[in-house]
């Protein structure tokens, strides 16, 4: 029986992009459905009634939601090119840092986006500390996952395009090669990988998108 794989995603979402990256790395053919988040499709609401969010992977009619849950599902279902490490301790570490990225780093990134003045400065300080902790995990390694890219690189991929675009749109100085040489060396390697580039968020379109959203929020909060 042929596998039917669908991905409900959104072009600017790093969570959506990381699932695409995993699917492509595994060579899994899939149908991509772009969701308009201001007008969510009835299919999306049917497949993810609890959160009503993308990404949602639908495999032979059965939905899986939450990007990190989806990544583990993909790795367990399509066993070629495993993205999670084999050793239980290494797996625990990979999961730990993935959680750190999503729960700490990205939360602080949002604070940086919406705060101004002193609050924004504090958020930038916070994110600098968090990025330093993450950078430590790269020391002495080619990639977060070791010799080749894997689960944690796929999750940290948010830094490669989304994060750098956000910084540019905000006009802040929080994520530079000067401050984080090891992360930037890793970014340099990642952007040379075709599959990673296929999943990149188009820069100009993204900058526009971020700026428009920030303007709308500022306007609505007045």
């Amino acid at each position, binding site marked *: 029986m042929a596998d039917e794989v669908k991905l409900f995603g959104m072009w600017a979402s790093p969570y959506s992009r990381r699932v695409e990256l995993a699917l492509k790395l595994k060579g899994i053919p899939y149908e991509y459905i772009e969701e308009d988040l201001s007008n969510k499709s009835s299919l999306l609401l049917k497949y993810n009634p609890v959160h009503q969010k993308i990404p949602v992977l639908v495999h032979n009619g059965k939905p899986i939601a*939450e990007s*990190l849950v989806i990544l*583990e599902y993909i790795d367990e279902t399509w066993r070629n090119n495993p993205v999670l490490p084999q050793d*239980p301790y290494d*797996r625990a570490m990979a*999961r730990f840092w993935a*959680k*750190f990225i999503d729960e700490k780093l990205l939360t602080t990134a949002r604070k940086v986006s919406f705060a101004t003045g002193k609050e924004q400065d504090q958020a930038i300080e916070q994110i600098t500390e968090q990025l330093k902790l993450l950078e430590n995990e790269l020391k002495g390694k080619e990639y977060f996952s070791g010799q080749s890219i894997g689960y944690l690189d796929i999750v940290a991929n948010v830094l490669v395009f989304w994060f750098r675009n956000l910084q540019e749109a905000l006009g802040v100085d929080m994520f530079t090669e000067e401050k984080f040489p090891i992360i930037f060396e890793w970014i340099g390697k990642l952007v040379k990988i075709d599959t990673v580039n296929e999943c990149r968020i188009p820069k100009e379109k993204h900058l526009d998108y971020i700026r428009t959203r920030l303007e709308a929020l500022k306007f609505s909060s007045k």
Partner: protein
Amino acid sequence: MAESDVKVKVLGSWSSPFVMRTMIALNIKSVNYEYLEERLWEGKSELLLKSNPVHKKIPVLIHGDKPICESLIIVQYIDEVWSSTPSILPSDPHERAAARFWAAYLDEKWFPSMRTISIAQGEDAKKAAIAQLEEGLVLLEEAFGKCSKGKPFFGGDQIGYLDIAFGCFLGWLRVTEKISGINLLGEAKTPALLKWAHRFCSDASVKDVMPETEKLAEFGKMIMAKMRGAAPPKS
């Protein structure tokens, strides 16, 4: 086996549902461990700060010289290291995904709304928080039907990942019921969960590590008093 030669320690706090998850998982696997109580109000121990420098939180599982942090990550680690039966995670990838999805929902949405109740200012805010909790329970009742497929636990015949993830909150859920005077798990809306809760708490791997509701309620009152005392007056 090599694992039995390696020391296992758990850094925890008796009132923490997250620590309970760790101990239930170890009990299911019949792993001997040394439990070290962190007196969090008196300051964090050197061992905790060294083992979890990033978050400085309990639980921490120390396996030999390796610290593992974050309760759900610890439970998966335990399942993978002591891989003999009984398994904690289901074997089917789709069922595993469902278990992980609901565990994430509990940690990210449901339990935070329980905490909101205790700090909610005013009756309206309290009611809204309780409503959120109740809605979540209705969702979980439905999930129980789908996951258990007529068996006693989310994990089937035996306690599994989602049972552990959810069941650890039953103590604090009962405290919330006591304080708010509202029946959150009840015959009317969550009959299956009501029965499941009883089975979970009676299970051999759970009953010795589930704190008494009275003790938790007293502890809860003490924290609330401390928080009110510590918080500066709002201007």
